[in-house]
């Protein structure tokens, strides 16, 4: 067993890192905020995929999807809110959850809306704290934090929007 602390903002980079770990024989078995637990196994035994689920794993619809995945030979490893970590025994074929234009687009849209909501909330707090910050230095510093999140999320949303555009070009 090995624990690694790491914080990702881009799930595609995170997925690549987890797959690189798996290639070197360390397989993800648990995730709690910014902490990954790996188990030693055969190098390249599993391929991993991260997905933002439509329904939380605790809901009936969410469970229905996880059962479907299980029946398709895919193991549900762990989750962080609606982000699910799946793995599949390597077969040589790439492990991809979404393979056509419409479903890929829908997945990206889901991610973009999630980040847009968080961004909007942070923007509101940033403006609020900045106004109060005229009188209180605590709120002023807090507003800086909010602004940083706003900037970070904006660039991330931009990346996913670009991904979505590239999808269109692929299928044109």
């Amino acid at each position, binding site marked *: 067993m090995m624990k690694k602390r790491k914080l990702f903002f881009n799930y595609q980079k995170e997925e690549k890192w987890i797959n690189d770990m798996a290639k070197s024989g360390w397989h993800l078995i648990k995730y709690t905020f910014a902490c990954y637990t790996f188990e030693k196994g055969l190098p390249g035994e599993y391929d991993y995929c991260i*997905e933002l689920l439509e329904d939380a794993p605790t809901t009936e619809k969410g469970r229905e*999807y996880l059962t*479907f*995945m299980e*029946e*398709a*030979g*895919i193991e549900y490893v762990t989750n962080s809110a609606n982000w699910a970590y799946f793995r599949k025994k390597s077969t040589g*074929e790439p492990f*991809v*959850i*979404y*393979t*056509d234009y*419409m*479903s890929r687009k*829908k*997945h990206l849209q889901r991610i973009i809306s999630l980040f847009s909501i968080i961004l909007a909330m942070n923007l509101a707090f940033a403006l609020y704290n900045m106004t109060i910050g005229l009188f209180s230095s605590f709120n002023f510093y807090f507003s800086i934090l909010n602004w940083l999140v706003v900037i970070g999320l904006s660039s991330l949303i931009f990346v996913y929007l670009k991904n979505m555009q590239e999808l269109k070009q692929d299928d044109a």
Partner: protein
Amino acid sequence: MSKEAYAPLTEAVYYILLALEQPRHGYAIMQYITEISHERINMGPGTLYGALKNLLEKEWIALIDGEVGSRKKEYILTDIGKEVVVTEMIRLEELLTNGKKIMKR
């Protein structure tokens, strides 16, 4: 719904409908599609799940009441589904016939 409203189908939907000419569960559908497309199409499970949900809503396919003990969900083509496939086949045939005639191949 007019017949024109069915077509054209996406490749994925067309092959899922074909696969469900007999009862199959999710994993079997994916395997079957890989097989009949000579490994050209490897449908992802997320894509298949979304498509199945959509086809169930349209009633082109239906869930089979599983026997007790077998918990895997099986799907089957409905009468509407059959009509959709046949309509699409006629459309595809027209495309192919005209292509062959004009391109002389």
